[in-house]
């Protein structure tokens, strides 16, 4: 483990591509609102600026803030004959460490042997058990902390793209910065915010070492099954075990946690009325109780509280 500007960074040792011709597949995992799609676009544009072929795309369902989102960037020195979901990435960029435990997101799934996993995490947080194959090729950095410091918001499209660009070892800082400028302009971001994002991108790009993956094509084959097996399962899309939404806890979507100072709370009930997720109930004394298992950290209560009795605190892991 190498200490770089206060962050623990573990570096892969080999720097070359085994596949010929080069096709580099990067998969981003984050949550709605992180800037996952924009991250994949900045990386795609940066590669395109380098004169390479690039392709970027997001995948998402019913869009909402906080829900798991994935996006993909393919980079090649020849025409790209792939589309859609990347099953076997060379690099995964995990923009929210809580997704590592999410069975539907499965961010490390299919990472090729020798591939690089980047995880956005605070250096002082306890590391997850990433598994043997990942631990050797892991790069970690607190992108959210740096984003909060420089742009004041936990939006990490730019630093995630900067991290991925640097890891590839084939994208220059100037191509990255051009891409940050053009992509953020296109979605209507103001000049001053773009300036701060450029500072953020440079900081990340310069802090993270080049760690190109040295991946091999995986030998594992996905098994196909005949129609007979598929249709031996129930064929109606009925949900008979209704009322199971509470099983899907949404509290780990938070970046900031609202905390009530009961000595200042006047039991006015404004937070209760405004909470869009019914995550606030009122106790018998009329003061709020926040359901942290499901509070998504939208902070509307914090903004609306008339006596300013709600404060916020950055959270790293909820569970």
């Amino acid at each position: 483990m190498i200490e770089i500007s206060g962050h623990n960074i573990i570096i892969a040792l080999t720097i070359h591509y085994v596949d010929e011709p080069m096709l580099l597949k990067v998969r981003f995992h984050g949550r709605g609102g992180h800037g996952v799609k924009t991250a994949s676009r900045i990386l795609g544009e940066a590669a395109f600026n380098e004169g390479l072929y690039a392709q970027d795309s997001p995948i998402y369902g019913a869009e909402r803030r906080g829900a798991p989102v994935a996006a993909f960037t393919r980079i090649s020195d020849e025409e790209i004959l792939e589309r859609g979901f990347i099953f076997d990435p060379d690099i995964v960029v995990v923009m929210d460490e809580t997704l590592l435990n999410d069975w539907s997101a499965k961010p490390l799934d299919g990472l090729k042997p020798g591939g690089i996993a980047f995880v956005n995490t605070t250096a002082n947080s306890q590391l997850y058990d990433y598994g043997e194959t990942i631990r050797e090729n892991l790069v970690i950095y607190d992108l959210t902390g740096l984003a909060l410091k420089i742009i004041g918001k936990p939006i990490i499209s730019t630093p995630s793209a900067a991290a991925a660009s640097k890891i590839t070892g084939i994208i220059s800082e100037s191509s990255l910065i051009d891409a940050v400028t053009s992509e953020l302009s296109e979605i209507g971001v103001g000049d001053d915010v773009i300036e701060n994002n450029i500072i953020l991108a440079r900081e990340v790009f310069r802090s993270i070492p080049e760690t190109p993956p040295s991946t091999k094509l995986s030998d594992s084959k996905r098994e196909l099954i005949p129609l007979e097996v598929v249709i031996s399962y129930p064929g109606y899309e009925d949900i008979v075990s209704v009322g199971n939404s509470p099983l899907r806890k949404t509290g780990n979507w938070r970046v900031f946690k609202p905390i009530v100072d009961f000595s200042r709370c006047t039991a006015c009930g404004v937070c209760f009325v405004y909470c869009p997720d019914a995550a606030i109930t009122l106790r018998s004394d009329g003061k709020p109780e926040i359901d942290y298992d499901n509070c998504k950290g939208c902070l509307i209560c914090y903004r609306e509280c008339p006596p300013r009795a709600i404060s916020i605190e950055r959270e790293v892991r909820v569970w």
Partner: protein
Amino acid sequence: MRHKAVMLTGNAAAAWGARLARAEYIPAYPITPQTEIIETLTKWIQEGEMDAKLVQLESEHSMLTAAGTASLTGVRVFTATSSQGLLYGFEMLYNIAGWRAPLVLVNVSRALAAPISLEPDHNDVLAARDSGFIQLHAETCQEVLDFILLAYRVAEDRRVMLPAIVNMDGFYLSFTREPVKIREQDLVDEFLPHYSAVNPFRASRHVAKGSAVVGGHIYSYFKYHMHEALRRAHDVFIEAARSFSRKFGELYHPVSGYMLDDAEYVLVMSNSFATLGKHVVKLMRQRGVPAGLLKISMIRPFPAEEIANSLKGRKAVAVFDQNISLGLGGIIYNEVLGALYGCPKRPEIVLSVIGGVGGKWLSVEEMEKIFDELKRLERSGITKPRPLFLFRRDELTHIERVLKLAGTIEVSHHE
């Protein structure tokens, strides 16, 4: 390739197609995954970069009615929808074609409910295959842009005068960025002259359109005309494509081959998954298998003769359908069989492959399986093979988990 190319999504490429074609009237209604087209056009119109009138209607039925009637006044009309939206306005498709209104509609394919989904297959656009619309199906974002220009040119040709659908897959093209050359406006203006309508609606000149007919013979008369006009669109397309290639370089065909010349095993595909087909053809070639791909870009008029000519003498053919006509099977498979019947030297083995329905992700293994199956059929001498439905074990494992959550299965018997 880099000169003049920019990174564009299929939706942005469609908006550029409408802009370069100088579409004048754009009736709109939002639906995922098409909405970005309309948003892009709205932004340009608002910023004064595009001179057009965009109106949001209250439904796709009204949107298509406005589109067709506006086209009859002599303005160039562009509109776009997806899936449920196309079906909601479906009644008007036959009307627009019958009115001989040569507008261009971009359909961003999305599977039809139920179950409700956002990802693509072609049951939506193929439901419109009998309506009288020309149908061009794009594999790449570049084709989305170029096909819109070609579609206007063919649709507005006096030998055709029929509307056109340009189809692109949701997500795989609509939200996917890749390098796209934005064509030069002055060259587009030369390629696509001003649209001149037949008997346009004018305040100063009376004309009735869409009149009722009493008597099947009158109805038949006009339907025969439409059929022949749509058939003529094939040759008009080839003519237009030649003119396009002289200006812009790319030469488009109703059907085209990839590593096809000496191929013995041929995969027939359309739309964006044809890219995945090319990938596996390349892999097969590296392994010494004489594989090739035939891409159908023009679904209507159906280029039956070219398909038959391209497939004659091959050892085995697989037709990939990203759709399913319930109770029949693959739609394109059956149309290809129709094209081959009675042709000399037609391939003995024609396998139907169903895959990518509802946007189901396809792995390389599934695409390889198609060629393995063709070789197996050839060895075993089976000439009437059962259709191949692509599905993977890991997908079924996920479904087991979902069914357990839904409460429709108790305990997995496969875990």
